[in-house]
């Protein structure tokens, strides 16, 4: 509980209406999109400017109150759950597009701008901001930067980190730093811009960002390829890349996902196939057409049982429906849907999918896998029920093994969702004890009193690495 005096000070900074400590507000800001995570803050503040953010930060620093910064609360790692109470700072009022610079091809935005609004604003000018996380219709750019969000276009265009050129951020001591700029080259000192991208609100509060834009591709086409065998699908992916084609999208659905999607949407997907690849290319029309032909030939060579190339927008829409409905279809099966993002080098997709299937069967769970085949970023999705404690325990064990399997294959515990609370116990598996120490040192340098988003990234205790005998 914060004293009335502190709440009154916060009110004075952000205004009566934008500082709330009534029950309703505390409950509404106690969760994000992560299943089974919830903690009440003591107060919710909604600043409208960098200056207000600074004043709130200074006050929090003076009284040693934790601050959890929040955009739309659409993350899947528990990144904005106020586990230590304190202040939840929602930046949704800082939602202005400051400038689109068509000379330098940049956009300058406040953190509360929705990702989809950035897409629309720049595409109206023939420009393109590629990162497209699944939650982009609600997510804010501040959240995307804090979690270094990915999306469907990661293979060809990279992720959020590849588009952040400069940042304005408020440090825990209340000072403002500006990193980078409208610069493609800048080696003046440590790259603080990249350091803040993906820092999950633990180092500083991002209050403005300069993002890189590229010309918008003129043409887009998509196709589906279906396989009786996962290996053949995986080999198609490797062959496409080996043939020096980088598709704009390269997604896949496993058999479990296909069955659930077909059951839900009735779009005529064959439920006996082991995998479906959804492949898209964008760019200049001639190149796109040529690539689509070559990709079809590669899929054919790898024994695709069926190939469907979309020739019209309606057909493209139909083709995309399968992938777009995956999460919806899976989440209708059971009350709780746990969506993970274990990631492996793309050549290891087939063994990783097999490992997930084996683990799922062994623990008697429903885990279906879909995801970004092109960049090895998989979404093993468990359909379960948070109220069934026995099952949830098995889910946790299964995911632990899935993380371990990913690391064994040269992968990582999280490709695009972030560490937050839920993967903090496993971070050491990926970065090692020495890596943990470096990260903790960085944290201390920025935030010596551990006020920013405490309880995230660094767990009190790391999990012991599971060793599974996979003969």
């Amino acid at each position, binding site marked *: 509980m914060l004293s009335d005096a502190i709440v009154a000070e916060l009110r004075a900074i952000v205004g009566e209406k934008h500082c709330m400590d009534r029950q309703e507000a505390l*409950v*509404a800001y*106690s969760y994000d999109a992560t*299943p089974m995570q919830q903690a009440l803050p003591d107060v919710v503040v909604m600043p409208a400017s960098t200056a207000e953010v600074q004043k709130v930060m200074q006050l929090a620093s003076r009284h040693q109150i934790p601050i959890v910064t929040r955009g739309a609360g659409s993350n899947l790692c528990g990144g904005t759950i106020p586990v230590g109470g304190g202040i939840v700072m929602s930046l949704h009022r800082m939602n202005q597009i400051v400038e689109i610079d068509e000379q330098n091809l940049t956009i300058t935005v406040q953190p509360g701008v929705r990702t989809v609004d950035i897409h629309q604003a720049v595409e109206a000018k023939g420009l393109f901001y590629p990162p497209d996380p699944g939650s982009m219709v609600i997510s804010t750019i501040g959240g995307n930067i804090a979690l270094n969000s990915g999306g469907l276009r990661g293979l060809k265009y990279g992720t959020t980190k590849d588009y952040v050129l400069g940042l304005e951020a408020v440090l825990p001591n209340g000072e403002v730093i500006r990193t980078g700029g409208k610069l493609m080259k800048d080696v003046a000192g440590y790259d603080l811009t990249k350091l803040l991208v993906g820092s999950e609100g633990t180092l500083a509060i991002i209050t403005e960002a300069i993002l890189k834009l590229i010309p918008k591709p003129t043409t887009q086409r998509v196709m589906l390829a279906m396989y009786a065998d996962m290996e053949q699908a995986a080999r198609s992916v490797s062959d496409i890349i080996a043939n020096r084609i980088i598709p704009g999208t390269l997604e896949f659905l496993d058999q479990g996902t296909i069955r659930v999607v077909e059951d839900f949407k009735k779009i005529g997907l064959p439920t006996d196939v082991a995998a479906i690849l959804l492949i898209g290319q964008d760019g200049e029309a001639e190149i796109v057409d040529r690539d689509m032909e070559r990709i079809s030939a590669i899929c054919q060579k790898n024994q695709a049982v069926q190939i469907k190339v979309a020739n019209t927008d309606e057909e493209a829409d139909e083709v995309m429906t399968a992938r777009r409905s995956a*999460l*919806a279809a899976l989440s209708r099966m059971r009350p709780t849907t746990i969506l993970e993002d274990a990631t492996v080098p793309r050549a290891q997709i087939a063994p990783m999918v097999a490992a997930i299937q084996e683990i799922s069967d062994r623990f008697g769970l429903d885990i279906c896998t879909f995801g970004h085949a092109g960049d090895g970023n998989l979404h093993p999705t468990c359909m379960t029920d948070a109220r069934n404690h026995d099952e949830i325990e098995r889910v946790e064990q299964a995911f632990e093994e899935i993380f371990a399997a990913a690391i064994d294959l040269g992968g990582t515990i999280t490709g695009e969702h972030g560490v937050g609370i839920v993967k903090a116990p496993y971070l050491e598996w990926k970065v090692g004890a020495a890596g943990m120490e470096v990260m903790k040192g960085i944290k201390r340098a920025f935030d010596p009193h551990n006020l920013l988003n405490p309880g995230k990234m660094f767990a009190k205790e790391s999990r012991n690495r599971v060793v599974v005998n996979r003969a």
Partner: protein
Amino acid sequence: MLKEALQNKLDYEELANCMRCGFCQPACPTFRETGYEAASPRGRIALMKAVTDGVMEPDQDFVDQMNLCLGCRACEPVCPAGVPYGQLIEQTREAIEQVQEHPWYVRLVRKTAFTHLFPHQRRLNRLGGLLGFYQRSGLQTAVRKLGMMKILPKQLQEMEAIMPDASAKSLTDRLGATVIPAVGERKRRVGMFHGCIMDVLFQETNVNTVRLLAESGCEVVIATGQVCCGALHAHSGERETAKSLARQNIAAFQKAEVDLIISNAGGCGALLQEYDHLLHDDPEWQEQAKWFAGRVKDISEVLAMSVQPEAWNALPQRVTYQSSCHLRNGMKVTKEPVNLLQAIPGATYVPLKEGDRCCGSAGIYNLVQPEMSGSLLDEKMGHVASTQADILVTSNPGCLLQMKAGIKRAGLEDRMEAVHLVDLLARVQKKEAN
């Protein structure tokens, strides 16, 4: 105690099905207006769940937040998990209503409206007669001249100003028959659901509906014994009354032995289509309720089955369409009204930006939440003005009144009119087709 009432009423399974992804938020008018998490479907469900779980006490803030919801259900089609938010908010309101201590005058108004008025079509028509007398006797002019309307809240003044002429006759009296034969070959036998308010304030639309149905090959039965659909009751927490109305309607239409039941009001149609859910805990009525729910169609669905543009006069005007939320999100009818408008010879159909977003009418919301409703309406009229349409089409009486009020409020009366889809189609239908 509200907490216990909520624990009893709320479907916990469905609360648990919300996975908090937040995909509902861009669709929610009150969230977009406020940016406040609690004022979104995800937020409201979290509040309902917190109360049921005992994490929070249902205080006045809770009640206010539930009342701020328009009930437009725009969150439902975009929900990946398929959470029936509309049912959850109705269950919540029913619980609130159960324990709410209203001041005596609110109790009186609610009792009068919900128990003594809406369920009784004859009384409504009689009231319509009084309203008609008020409008036509010169009393309305006198009242307006004397400035007596000024004592009413602004929203009520705006509504009084655009109130259509009321009818004292019932639809059957007006048509002089309960069965209207199909013109030409009889394709099907349909029951006309005439609604309560619809039949008093928009009886012309009902007459036109019957005519268009007959001309499209339907034998139309005005099933006797039908009553108000119960939507206003269900939305306001009077679920038991809604159930009893549902039973009366089911009986009336079963007796009429119809293939389809036709509604021309999205707000009514959506509830009619959910009678099976409304009566799900009434085993005696389950089968009949399913029979009924499965037969309900919006008028636009039937007319779109057999569009005959050659039977229509040209209409050299720009038309745009504001969807009824419950027609779109409840009945899932989206294309048919637009297809019909696009088929009118000579007319230019201009899509309305955010025409799928609530206009702020939402039953009696515009009267009880004037501030939010007004700001939604102003935004709406901005988009409407930029279509430069001559005719703004909608398909539900509440929306139609709100659009009429909006046009007046935005000073657009000289440039455009708001019309029910059915009335527009009746206007272009060639007379010789009769």
